[in-house]
């Protein structure tokens, strides 16, 4: 989903940076207050961040005959919300911009807006919509992960379409073209990513249900119910 360095006019680079900065500031504020409250959240943040690191390093081949990588931001969005996720995503993107030449410093704002902000925002909206419904919490996490992944690529397409409207058909035509490159490739990857992140979430609530309850990610009832469905299995883990 990276827009490569130099491929975005500087005006657009500036606009996306300006949009991104408030999210980063909020992220730092939230992160500091979270750490002051309880250091025990740090390992969970580590897991969420680790998944963004791992998944965004995997360039997977897709049905369209090109490769793309999952984003892994869904888990962090579910557990910590948009702002903290934007910080973790920004760190990964900064690493890739500095040493891998995937993305770059001028386009970092645009890449953050898609992967570290836009995807998580969309995922978070879905999470809020489904949170207090009867929908199984694993289904919720799955959909959040898939949506966060797909929307990342939709926003990348939009960023490029706005900067490079087609001569015939304008922004809409060029959006369709970029959408075909980025988003269609991404659909199967997003589904696999959703499954993997949901599985990790299951292990988190098996080991640390109290943390998810304390963060008010899901209610105690929902967690107990989800654990009840899976609790019979791990007799070796339970003992």
């Amino acid at each position: 989903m990276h827009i490569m360095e130099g491929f975005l006019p500087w005006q657009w680079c500036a606009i996306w940076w300006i949009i991104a900065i408030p999210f980063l500031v909020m992220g730092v504020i939230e992160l500091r207050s979270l750490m002051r409250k309880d250091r025990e959240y740090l390992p969970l943040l580590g897991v969420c961040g680790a998944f963004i690191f791992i998944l965004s390093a995997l360039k997977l081949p897709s049905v369209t005959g090109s490769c793309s990588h999952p984003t892994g931001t869904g888990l962090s969005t579910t557990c910590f919300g948009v702002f903290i996720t934007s910080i973790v995503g920004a760190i990964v993107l900064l690493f890739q911009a500095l040493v891998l030449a995937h993305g770059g410093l001028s386009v970092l704002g645009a890449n953050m807006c898609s992967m570290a902000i836009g995807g998580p925002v969309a995922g978070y909206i879905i999470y809020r919509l489904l949170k207090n419904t009867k929908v199984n919490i694993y289904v919720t996490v799955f959909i959040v992960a898939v949506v966060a992944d797909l929307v990342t690529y939709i926003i990348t397409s939009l960023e490029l379409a706005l900067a490079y409207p087609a001569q015939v058909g304008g922004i809409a035509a060029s959006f369709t073209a970029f959408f075909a490159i980025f988003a269609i490739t991404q659909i199967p990857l997003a589904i696999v990513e959703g499954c993997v992140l949901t599985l990790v979430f299951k292990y988190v609530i098996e080991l640390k249900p109290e943390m998810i309850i304390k963060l008010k990610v899901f209610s105690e009832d929902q967690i107990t119910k989800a654990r009840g469905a899976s609790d019979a299995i791990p007799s070796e883990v339970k003992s």
Partner: protein
Amino acid sequence: MIKNRKLELITLVAVLAFIIVFLSVSAEGTHEFAGSDTVGSGKIAELTGLSVDSFPPLIPQYVPPSGEVEATLFALQAAFGGVILGLVFGYWLGQRKISSHL
């Protein structure tokens, strides 16, 4: 037993389906499996009528000299994530073991 491992099973099926689709697509041999970033940049060049090389970086950046070096750096990135992941789950499992002994 199977019911309780439903999520693991679904994930396994999804991954297998993904691999099978990949194998059947790649068997045709008509695709290059280039990165979508590269394909996207190619599209920009096409839309603007300029060549890909005519987009110099706005801010100079380090570019890995070869695909091998790049692969190493990506592997490092993933390994870093993996280490953290193993560390935390190990820490939690250990915590739980201690608390169940009390």
